[in-house]
């Protein structure tokens, strides 16, 4: 057994904090430095109170050994950051429809399948934005079967993603005609926090959401033959080795010649040498070599 104390979480010693964060990093890939102590302490305190844990030792036992994993899932749901909006970093979506997809389908027969994965999709704005961009701006959208996959480690945000209900802030970057075409205003929803809109059912049915821990290779193994992975502003919550591992899993999930799209502040060259940077007119993406990078 480790040297955990039974102190209240507000008073977590440096050692206890390191143990807790090490456990979370190992299970989820999420990395919390000392600078995040206040953020972590408050959430752990809330969960300990909710389950009636008498101390950190008891709470860690629950996290480690609970057969359902329910408490760990609840804690992780509190630890993730899910701030996003429609058409965020739109130049990358432009790159998808203006350059990347045409390159990917070159030589593929009509009717072939394309697989796009939004990893770390939070409340769904990214995969739905991709869907709208494809329908609106890729002239060959009807020539191929396009599968849109979306995943997150946070079960609460995935339920919201499936519902597809958004407030004004999430929709601010969306042109009015697209809002009118792909969203329905929700009546009687204005009292609580302003007006809200729901993605039309047809589009909701076009995104396949699943709960996935990308720090676990067994779970990522379900994703194979992917053509494009969007993983934007997720790996910034991982440490260097966690990023390197995630990049390796993406490499494995991609079809030869497939692409990874990272957030604007992220660079694959600082994570892994498995990919080749590709500069397109709209954005830089990272490509798995067509030969898979065999040695």
């Amino acid at each position: 057994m480790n040297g955990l104390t039974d102190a209240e979480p507000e008073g977590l010693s440096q050692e206890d904090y390191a143990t807790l964060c090490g456990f979370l990093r190992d299970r989820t890939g999420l990395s919390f430095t000392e600078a995040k102590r206040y953020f972590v302490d408050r959430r752990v305190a809330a969960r300990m109170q909710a389950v009636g844990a008498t101390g950190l030792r008891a709470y860690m036992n629950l996290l480690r050994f609970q057969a359902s994993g329910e408490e760990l899932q609840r804690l992780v749901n509190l630890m993730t950051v899910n701030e996003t909006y429609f058409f965020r970093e739109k130049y990358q979506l432009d790159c998808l429809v203006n350059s990347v997809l045409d390159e990917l389908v070159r030589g593929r027969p009509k009717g072939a399948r394309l697989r796009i994965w939004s990893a770390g999709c939070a409340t769904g704005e990214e995969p739905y934005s991709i869907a709208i961009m494809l329908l609106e701006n890729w002239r060959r959208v009807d020539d191929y079967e396009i599968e849109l996959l979306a995943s997150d480690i946070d079960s609460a945000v995935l339920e919201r993603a499936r519902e597809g209900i958004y407030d004004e802030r999430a929709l601010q970057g969306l042109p009015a005609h697209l809002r009118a075409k792909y969203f329905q205003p929700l009546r009687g929803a204005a009292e609580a926090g302003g007006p809200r809109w729901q993605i039309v059912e047809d589009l909701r049915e076009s995104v396949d959401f699943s709960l996935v821990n990308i720090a676990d290779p067994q779970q990522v193994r379900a994703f194979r033959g992917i053509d494009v992975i969007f993983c934007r502003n997720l790996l910034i919550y991982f440490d260097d080795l966690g990023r390197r591992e995630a990049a390796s899993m993406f490499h494995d999930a991609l079809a030869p010649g497939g692409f990874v799209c990272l957030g604007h502040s992220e660079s694959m060259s600082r994570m892994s040498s498995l990919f080749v940077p590709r500069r397109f007119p709209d954005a830089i993406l990272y490509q798995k070599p067509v030969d898979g990078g065999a040695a």
Partner: protein
Amino acid sequence: MGLVKKKAAPELAPVLAPAATGARPDPLASLEDADAAVRRDAAHALGHAALPGAEAALARRLQTEGDAGVREAILTALARIATPDAAAALVPFLDREDAALRNAALESLQQMPAEVAAPALLPLLDHADADLRIFAVQGLGSLVHPSRADWLARVMERDADVNVCLAAVEALAEAGSPEALSSLETLARRFPGDAFVAFAVDAARSSFQGR
């Protein structure tokens, strides 16, 4: 055609239960599996639950591994294990013909704690091969360690190969190490006719002095 409609949305399956991350096949045995995906998963597992002999097994597999993804997983696992044995297991790969493998091995050493990586890299400063000494300088130069500037200063004052010395200048300049100024001056005197040494020393000197 167009966007594929999903079937009825299933319940979100739990992914953080111990069973989801727990019982797996023996990773040491799986490291030799014919399926690259199994080998990659085995390397990943060994990185997270280092078993006795894991370092040697990973290094052995790395010598013959042809799949880029598995190689990367092995190198990352060794970096995560970060024992003296793991660091020592990476050193022989700094000497390989394959530049990608050399660089990835160095990167793994750099991602280890300094107190683990430094003892593996320091002996290379005295190696007969100047290329290996450059790798050692690059590795040591990226570590956060109180003796870092001293190691690099020693290189600038003593190493016979100008390229090794310049690698030390570069490493010092990146982090800004004013305490190494006198060693920089020594280096400039050791290679008085070399214009690039003069340029590099001057650039480093300027960066230390905030100009």
